[in-house]
């Protein structure tokens, strides 16, 4: 777990994933192609992380040479992974933004059922927060504004089409 000074780079987040409480993957993004390139390695890593974290309620861990910040909400576990020498608080900001954005989008029902029902929105939220490992947005309001506008729009469309049918 030795680490020198961090490299000045925009690529902060190594991976981000959401698991349910049976360790199933709902969403996972690995931004560093060198880190766990195969699905099997990714799943092993996720299982390892899940086993070490799901029982404790302590938001940060260090596993397999990675700093992992995490948060649980009802039956969901949100994880953000960074390298050993990454600023832990930066990762925490990403995690908070993710959980807060989900909270806003899912109207406080951050649980598996509602997440699955709004999976498209979740993909978009994650895409607005981190892309390719670069932090794009850290303000949940901004994230929702960028995504939600369209959600509303699509609601309108939906009504329109349901009438037209």
């Amino acid at each position: 777990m030795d680490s020198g000074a961090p490299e000045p780079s925009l690529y902060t987040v190594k991976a981000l994933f959401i698991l349910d409480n049976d360790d199933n993957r709902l969403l996972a993004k690995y931004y560093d192609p060198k880190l766990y390139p195969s699905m099997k390695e990714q799943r092993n890593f996720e299982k390892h992380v899940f086993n070490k974290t799901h029982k404790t309620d302590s938001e940060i861990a260090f596993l397999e040479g990675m700093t992992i910040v995490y948060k649980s909400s009802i039956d969901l576990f949100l994880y953000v992974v960074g390298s050993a020498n990454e600023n832990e608080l930066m990762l925490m900001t990403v995690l908070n933004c993710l959980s807060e954005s989900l909270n806003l989008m899912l109207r406080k029902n951050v649980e598996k059922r509602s997440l699955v029902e709004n999976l498209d929105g979740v993909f978009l939220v994650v895409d607005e927060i981190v892309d390719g490992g670069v932090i794009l947005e850290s303000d949940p309001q901004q994230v929702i504004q960028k995504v939600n506008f369209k959600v509303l729009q699509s609601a309108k469309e939906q009504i329109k089409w349901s009438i037209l049918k």
Partner: protein
Amino acid sequence: MGVIKNSKHACEQHVPGEGDIMLARIFNETPINPRRCLHILTKIIYLLNQGEHFGTTEATEAFFAMTRLFQSNDQTLRRMCYLTIKEMANISEDVIIVTSSLTKDMTGKEDVYRGPAIRALCRITDHMVKMSYDVVKRWVNEAQEAASSDNMMVQYHALGLLYHLRKNDRLAVSKMLNKFTKSGLKSPFAYCMLIRIASRLLEETDGGHDNPLFDFIESCLRNKHEMVVYEAASAIVHLPNCTARELAPAVSVLQLFCSSPKAALRYAAVRTLNKVAMKHPSAVTACNLDLENLITDSNRSIATLAITTLLKTGSESSVDRLMKQISSFVSEISDEFKVVVVQAISALCQKYPRKHSVMMNFLSNMLRDDGGFEYKRAIVDCIISIIEENPESKETGLAHLCEFIEDCEHTVLATKILHMLGKEGPRTPTPSKYIRFIFNRVVLESEAVRAGLSVSVPGLEKSLHQYTLEPTEKPFDMKTVPLASAPINEQKTEIATVVTSKMPEKVGPSRQDIYQEQLAAIPEFKALGPLFKSSDPVQLTEAETEYVVRCIKHTFTNHMVFQFDCTNTLNDQLLQKVMVQMEPSEAYEVVHYVPALDLPYSQPGSCYTLVRLPDDDPTAVSCTFSCTMKYLVRDCDPNTGEPDEDGYDDEYVLEDLEVTVADHIQRVLKPNFGAAWEEVGDEFEKEETFALASVKTLEEAVGNIISFLGMQPCERSDKVPENKNSHVLFLAGVFRGGHDVLVRSRLALADGVTMQKNASGKIIILYDEDERVASQAATTMCERGFENLFMLSGGLKVIAQKFPEGLTTGSFPSSCPQSVPPTSGRKRSTPRPPSYPAENKWQFTSEDLNKIQFYLEDMLIPTNTNSRLSRLSVGSAQSKASSARSSYTPSAACSDSARTQSSTRHWK
């Protein structure tokens, strides 16, 4: 894309009954049904996320179908299209078909599309062409403008891009830093980036931290964002050569963070403090109280880090308590942190050697717990280092290790421990008890572990003889150990082992047997006696040549057999009567050649050359042979391999082959080197001093000596402790014919002066410009016991006048006016010979001596000497002139030297 099958988990509930619907059909419905299309896209992304594999054609088809979705104005659908494109960009072949749709969105009016469309397009272009640095570089101005944007994220990204573009240009980076540190930034991310850039720049700058960059980092400790404050503190801690004063403000903010309600902040703080404690434990002592509070933190990572930090900073009295606390939850923490704990313990043992029993107990408990390889290895390493440091802990430590290997799944560790037992076991009061553990391994373990035993068994066996255990044990040991197939000479001379710790290869024990058999099958070599040593193969050709030849040197008592393994890589040639002709440089005599009769394409064959070693001069050990391969070539059909009737003679020049000292010496492990040294006695001792001028470190010297002599380092003396200026290396071996050779090599890494202290035949001359400094220095050195010290009275100024040339090297400082030599016409007209720096000049040339003679006569005749070598101390009575000649310039000359003491005893 064909069909979506295998939808799993959640999506099954979500997309009812659409398992087998063709994508294209849904996408082609008119009007477009955004909801259903959205489902499909969501499902695709979900399946990709689950690791479902999409074929190239499927992905390309999906891309095609998706172009139609751009007709819809549904924003979410459009956004999902972008996402799908991004996800599939690297699978699909024909991504170009969607780029026109993306380009349209990118330049369109809708803000919400523009960003994501660009990002999706970037992913595609990334996939298609390598990032073009030059193109991006043209946008520096735009990036610069963006960096002063009001939008925080824009600012951050622009800064990141600017740094990336300029990072190879130090000046530009420091200008950029200067600008932004003054103007200030809004985004905390951008601040973190600036801090990283600044610390990177500081690291590259030599000298102290009295620098605006450091001031900037320090000022960030007062930023309102915790993220920035922590980044700054961490940057200061990671700076090399930080003083305690510079560290203090960083440590105090970290101390504050320790009591934060946020776990991540506490974790970050204590992890950084742990780092500080490694180098500056005293700087962290102020935080001890806060760290104590963290021991009970619910996050075990934080608690572990707190304890290990305390172990580094705390006093000896707190060790017991902390160890107890940590053992209460060691099973709950991850392997990574367990390793941290073990490392802390290892450091602690060095600091408080008296605590080793507590530690050993703790470690043995940890060893019994479950854990991965890294963790176990850390524990084993730690125990071994404790054993090496504290002799009194040896028995308990070995007992723990023995218990561990009884049920150890890690071959590497078992081998390591067995090796340790072989080394240390014989020196314990009761070596017999380790026999059982080793024997168990011999019976049960795999090849690799047994190879590790080949060292330990003979070592123990010998000790068994010495300690005379019950006679019943003896046959058990000799007969049942499967590795007893030792070469013949070994049994004759009772040398403990042939295989050494440095050669853990499995073939080790059997390799020599094979050679022995092979050689004995050749009638010419039957009378040579037992094979003494076989070298590793030496390549005599480049790897990619027509013929590949390598040589193995077999040493016998009075002969050497060179085995040439030749391979013919030409498929249109058959070589016959292949032999390697050797021309020795020394008194070696080539006695006989054994040719390889046939050498067809790609089938290796061996030919041999027998050489008699010179009898009359046993010291002529090294020799260089020039080698030529001679053979008869018969061209043949590459397809059938049928050779022609006729052949012709040809030859092929090989690289020279060296026979070195190491070829005559076999490595032998002496478990007790001191006793062996005494046994040989003084009469066979020979002492010599060598200067190893090209060697810079003691490790390098040790490595060179070992490989040059080819002997076995004993008593772990091949490991040089850190920060030592001297070292003693013990080597043991057997010279061919069964003569024991022991080497005790005292190595000193010294500056020239210390090396020359009281060395016989050397004097040290001190001089300075005008005899002010030198006299004081000379007094001090005399007090320190220098007895061969002289001072040049009058200093350089006098020398400059009396000896303008010859006695000194380099040019005189301007403060020393040179006199014009009396007969200078001749001298001046000739160009001055190049003057060598003092450290390169070892001897006076005859020209120098002539000049000195010339000036000396000139000076002594008219005046009485007023420049003289006045002797300061009493010591060896050497003639000044001769010693001055031999060593005038060694002041900074001899940087390293080795003194080798060797003794040879003839066992007849």
